[in-house]
């Protein structure tokens, strides 16, 4: 089924259906409504529904196809890649996908890197995004204490069960990361197991990934420019190649468009 078809409005006007006097047709109308509602992949499940079953899609068709639908819930997943490989664009797209559907997302950002304007341009509902920023510091890297506190905050967020997505951005924290206890990632993986939360690490190189988590490595292919060199030239997109899985056996090329 095409993605576009999943976002079509509900088939009929609910009040008109429910006003029908015939109980059988009323029941059928309600069932149709529920069925249509369940087919909206963006929306979190109905009250009492099991959220653990559906992965969280990124909104990028090529990446979702690579990951088998998206990032799995109840697992620690990872996206890593060097500078300008599209990690942040992918993260922002994921945040937008979750918050647009009415669910909550949290981003623990020790280096205070998120640009809210980029997130809004990607379609994120910022009121449903909890953004925890690291302390302001002149250094390029956060201190080890900041990263320890960030891991503790991720544990709190994942344990609350309130958020569909909890992301920790550890790109640019190589030295500080060495000070973290070795069991940190195992502990986070155990904590998130069985919950409806997808835990995502964003980094420059491979850090950790749960046994059932999705691992996505991004390889930059360089910027694409529009127009000839000169005043009219624009940065059109960033091309990147995404490799999925531990042995990077599946890959796809992406082009992330320019900011609005």
């Amino acid at each position, binding site marked *: 089924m095409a993605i576009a078809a999943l976002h079509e409005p509900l088939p009929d006007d609910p009040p008109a259906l429910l006003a029908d006097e015939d109980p059988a047709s009323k029941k059928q109308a309600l069932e149709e409504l*529920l069925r249509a509602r369940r087919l909206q992949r963006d929306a979190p499940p109905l009250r009492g529904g099991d959220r653990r079953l559906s992965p969280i899609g990124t909104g*990028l068709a090529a990446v979702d196809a690579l990951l088998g639908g998206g990032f799995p819930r109840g697992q620690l997943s990872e996206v890593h890649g060097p500078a300008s490989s599209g990690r942040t664009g992918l993260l922002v797209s994921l945040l937008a996908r979750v918050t647009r559907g009415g669910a909550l997302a949290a981003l623990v950002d020790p280096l205070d890197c998120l640009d809210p304007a980029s997130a809004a341009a990607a379609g994120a509902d910022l009121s449903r995004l909890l953004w925890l920023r690291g302390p302001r510091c002149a250094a390029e890297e956060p201190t080890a204490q900041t990263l320890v506190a960030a891991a503790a905050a991720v544990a*709190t967020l994942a344990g609350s069960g309130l958020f569909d997505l909890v992301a920790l951005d550890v790109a640019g924290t190589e030295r500080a990361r060495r000070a973290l206890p070795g069991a940190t990632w195992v502990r986070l993986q155990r904590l998130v197991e069985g919950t409806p939360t997808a835990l995502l690490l964003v980094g420059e190189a491979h850090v950790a990934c749960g046994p059932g988590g999705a691992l996505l490595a991004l390889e930059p292919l360089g910027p694409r420019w529009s127009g000839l060199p000169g005043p009219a030239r624009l940065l059109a*997109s960033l091309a990147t190649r995404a490799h999925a899985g531990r042995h990077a056996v599946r890959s796809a090329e992406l082009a992330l468009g320019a900011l609005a």
Partner: protein
Amino acid sequence: MFGGLHSPRPLPHEGALLALARDFTPRVEVVAPTAVLLDLHGLGRLWPTPEELGRALVAAAAARAIKAQVALAFSRAVALVLARARPGLTIVPAGGEREALAPLPLALLGLAPEREELLRRWGLRTIGELARLSAKGLAERFGHEGPRLVRLARGEDDGVLVRAPLPERFELTLELDWPVDGLEPLAFLLARVLEPLCAALVGRGRKAAALAIELGLVDGTTHARRLAPASPSGEARTWRTLVLLDLEAHPPRDAIARLTARAEPTAARPAQFSLLDPALPSPERLAETMARLVAWTADGRGGAPQLVDTHRPGAFVVGSFAPGALPVAAPGPEPASRFALRAFRPPRLARVTLQAGQPAFVSAPGVRGSVAACAGPWRASGDWWDVAWSRDEWDVALASGGVYRLFRDRLREAWFVEGELD
């Protein structure tokens, strides 16, 4: 027996008369700001005779600097009318109600002005004259109000005493036999205080919008904290967690000898769940989670980002995280996939070498290399009436990898790397 209290002079403060009445009985009706009725049944063991009770009321009023007129009678209407009519203490024996009211002017009955004027035109001046009229005849002229007026004039009660509700004060204090030191033993004591407090709140259909905790310390000082989460709660477990988390961050400086919890009540509004809309997060769990993250959110660095209505680059504020209901909107088209700015805060000061007016080499902390390709400049400026800014922006791709956004601050004549395009 009933008592009427009336103050012909202004009261020392609003509610002074009610507070005086409540010293004698909880069954008090506030008839007017300067008049209250007391149900004095069952006080015979404390004040054996009506005279003693009346004198006690007068003395209590004098002690509170209230010049009160007191009347005791076996009818509420009589007690109230006589309290308004006669100074000092008036006691009406059983059966003497009608005689006590008879000489008093009609105005004391508190009738509607047009009704009182009509009775005056009939030649009636006193309550006794009204009492002598036939109830049937008055009913033919005034309808059902006629017999009621006659009963009132004869000192017979209609209806019941409407008790003023007691003020809602949700406060509990626990005096400890031995001082406790540390949060672990305090957790058990908090449960002993908060569970009955929350049960009382819930029993009255209330929740606590805020909770004030006062810890009396061994050194004689008081450690006071006030918690006001985003959403009211009536759950003892939630409040206990919030209090413990707060005390972890702000521990008392000595052992605790006394514990007082005072809730600020608010009406409990039941949530209306929807069959088709996504469920909102539980307010209690959200408040608990946010309390655990107070180290990140206390200084305003954590929360929900909000864009500001300005063209100034990178302008945003961080508000409190309180997600509401999903706005009703038709599903729009899927936003196109975009790269995002990975911001450097603050922007990194850079040295930029230009060639033919374009950046050729960039050197900044963490960003260094020759420029392979670039686009720009785009000039932007604004806020000249406030804190002005003006800049030329460039998107540059370094030969060593990475695409960055640079800008030259035209007011400070300096180059900065704003962030990485990722």
